[in-house]
């Protein structure tokens, strides 16, 4: 029984209408930019910086999807671990790459037990992982807000000037390790500045994750995701693999926020991490991933597409419209994409 409507050729239909629309939208934006003689090099440079900045957070979603947890809305848990690491390293006054390393190191060390606990909880709440992750993330972020206010950190650059206690909302990294990775291996290609260091770290982690899923452990994790009975028949404990996948995801999120912060130049505390999972999820979905399958390619393509739109939309549209439509566009594209993916679970 044929359904009425426009029939697209097969590969386009698999690509999906939302992705098509998004890609077209990006092309249109760039076309307008070219037509209005905008600083293309600057736009491209900014896009690349944003990709490097956000990439690892998107990458963090891959192990969760491949491990059968679905979309990891609980990314803020890993992010918090990374933020704690960053705050500790700032409080200790460590500069440069060493500071980034310390922040990431502490973040990872925290992320392992946190991820394990989170994974254990997800095993008990099968079928509702997305909601549980979302609200657990929200709850922990708000709890940490109270913690930041009461924190025993004394470094005057971090705490409120009045009262001398409680961390500020945003901590500036200027002069400490602001853009340290970005600048580390920076180079220019025909006028476009490329933040080599950050991209190198992102690329390296992508490679490691790709390699991981070709190891015995990685294959086991991915194989167990289709069904508990299949896993059992193959001698795999899917409870264990799901926890392993969650730990990996949380660890990557911790690293991701440290890289993000150094690129952005600020460490954002309090309510900033609340909604950080959503753009990352939209990125990987736009890249072609589904709730049950994701590849490195999806991470790269999706991050590039979505972040480019966000980067380019404001300057391009501000020539025509006053006011920042990029935020509204982000809400629509990001949540529309996630909604689309949610309605397609279980369909091939």
């Amino acid at each position, binding site marked *: 029984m044929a359904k009425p409507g426009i029939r697209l050729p097969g590969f386009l239909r698999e690509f999906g209408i939302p992705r098509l629309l998004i890609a077209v939208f990006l092309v249109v934006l760039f076309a307008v930019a070219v037509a209005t003689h905008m600083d293309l090099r600057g736009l491209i440079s900014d896009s690349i910086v944003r990709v490097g900045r956000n990439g690892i957070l998107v990458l963090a979603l891959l192990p969760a999807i491949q491990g059968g947890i679905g979309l990891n809305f609980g990314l803020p848990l890993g992010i918090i671990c990374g933020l704690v690491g960053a705050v500790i390293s700032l409080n200790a006054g460590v500069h440069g790459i060493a500071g980034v390393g310390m922040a990431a190191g502490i973040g990872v060390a925290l992320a392992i037990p946190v991820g394990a606990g989170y994974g254990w909880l997800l095993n008990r709440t099968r079928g509702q992982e997305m909601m549980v992750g979302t609200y657990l993330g929200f709850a922990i972020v708000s709890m940490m807000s109270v913690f930041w206010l009461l924190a025993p950190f004394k470094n005057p650059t971090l705490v409120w000037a009045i009262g001398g206690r409680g961390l500020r909302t945003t901590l500036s990294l200027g002069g400490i390790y602001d853009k340290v990775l970005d600048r580390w291996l920076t180079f220019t290609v025909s006028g476009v500045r490329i933040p080599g260091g950050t991209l190198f770290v992102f690329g390296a982690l992508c490679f490691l994750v790709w*390699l*991981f899923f*070709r*190891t*015995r*452990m990685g*294959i*086991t994790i991915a*194989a167990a995701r*289709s*069904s508990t*009975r*299949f896993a*059992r*028949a*193959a*001698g*795999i404990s899917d409870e264990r693999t799901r926890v392993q996948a969650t730990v990996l995801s949380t660890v990557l999120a911790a690293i991701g926020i440290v890289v993000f912060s150094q690129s952005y130049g600020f460490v954002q505390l309090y309510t900033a991490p609340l909604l950080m999972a959503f753009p990352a999820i939209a990125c990987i979905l736009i890249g072609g991933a589904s709730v049950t*399958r994701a590849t490195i390619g999806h991470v790269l393509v999706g991050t590039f597409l979505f972040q480019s739109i966000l980067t380019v939309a404001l300057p391009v549209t501000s020539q025509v419209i006053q006011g920042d439509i990029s935020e509204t566009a982000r809400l629509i594209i990001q949540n529309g994409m996630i909604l689309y993916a949610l309605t397609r679970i279980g369909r091939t």
Partner: protein
Amino acid sequence: MTPSAASSAPPALELRSIVKEYEGNRVLKGVSLSVREGEIHALVGENGAGKSTLMNILFGMPVIWETGGYEGEILLGGAPARFHSPAEAMNAGIGMVHQEFMLLPGFRVAENIKLNREPTLPNPASRVLGPKLESLDVPRMRADARRALDQVGLGIDEWIAVAGLPVGHMQFIEIAREVDKANLKVLIFDEPTAVLTETDAEKLLAIMRGLAAKGHAILFITHRLDEVLAVADRITVLRDGEVVGTPDPKTTTVVRIAELMVGRPAGVTAPRRFFAPSTEPVLGVEHLSVDMPGERVEDVTLAVRRGEILGIGGLAGHGKLGIANGIMGLYPGSGRVIFDKAVFPLNEPRLALERGLAFVSEDRRGVGLLPEESIELNIALSALEAHGRFLHPFPIQPLRVVDHRAMRAHALEMIRALDIRTTGPSQQVRRLSGGNQQKVCVARAMTLEPRLLFVSEPTRGIDVGAKQRVLEILSALNRDHDVTLVVTSSELAELRAISDRVAIVYRGRIAAVLPPDAPDADFGLAMAGESAKAA
């Protein structure tokens, strides 16, 4: 058991030449049967014979219409009918007592009995916004429910919650619900006694007789052949989508019915080996019981001889599939198993694989394959997990990277050896035909290089040509590689063709172990539980 006197009246329900195809596969090939008022008509057949499809058609289930509808006619009281939804079927007077209870545990008995047919009273809102907003007439609900419960002889309070009631009561509430329907013309019982105790089953049969005596037309689907003889006025035996016999319950026997259900073997083809009785067992099973829903194993004691092909057969639901599943640890089991002279722990799937056992499950899609992954990964997976094959060496075990070249080479070899029709080893398994998917499952098990291989339903859902091929592969495996095989199958003919011995399971126990060329009657007896021969 009184048949209707008015035989000139049209039957309450008649099915004429029902044909149903699922994607080119003919599941029903022209089934006809009729049920008269006041008659109990038993419908028997193996799983896969077409009973559930027939019921889905009768009950207007959406899955039928989503896959192209059906051919043939349904006549209700002589008038043609076609049901496009369960609601239509129910409104026309078809009642069904399902195998899984269709009760709402949080509702009271009366609420369940009157579900979606509650008597209501109009109120101001309903006069404006429609009859759906009429208020429930609780006193009438309770009165109707009381009457229905009395009809089935269940004395419980109609206003208590269903949750927590014993299983037998729940079944009777289901019946009460159907009986309460004023326009009930045909009542279908689908495996009603499957979960009941002996006493409750007796009560249910009594209720059935009572309802028939009152004039209801009853269609009774069951695997329990003794029940069939106890209550049926007429019997229809279904096999492979066709009616293969309508034995007269007054003169037929359980054995005869079993024979009809299972079919006559075409003849033994493979050369037989003969084992001297002193050949030591490679696998000894003592008092095995397995909790597999639908295929419960009660108490099985069996010895598998080294190098033989042992067939396990029996009617559906009697537990034959549970044996392999239990030993391989997929379902909880208890008992004593000895493999290769060492005690073998149950409920340890990983250990089973490591020790040299392998399993090709009857559940190809759910347990046997990763449909989204490549053929080569599917073939290599179990061996990779259990034996660490196809991995590059590396000091840290879990981080050993896959040796793709070795995996691919092996996959190509398997594709050639088993003649798997595919575009290449990296093709997704879900794109293969059923037969080729089965070959991938077998390849996966073979890659483990097991000493003993369990295969369940090796040729189910495969076209005829591929069936033969799979059986040949299994025989070759046993003959040339000295792998002991335990083949479980619903197709007795197939078992008798390749096995050295055939064990028949009845109600969770071994009824008999027979040589493949034993007389047909022996097999029929064993399947019907009438034999005393043991392993």
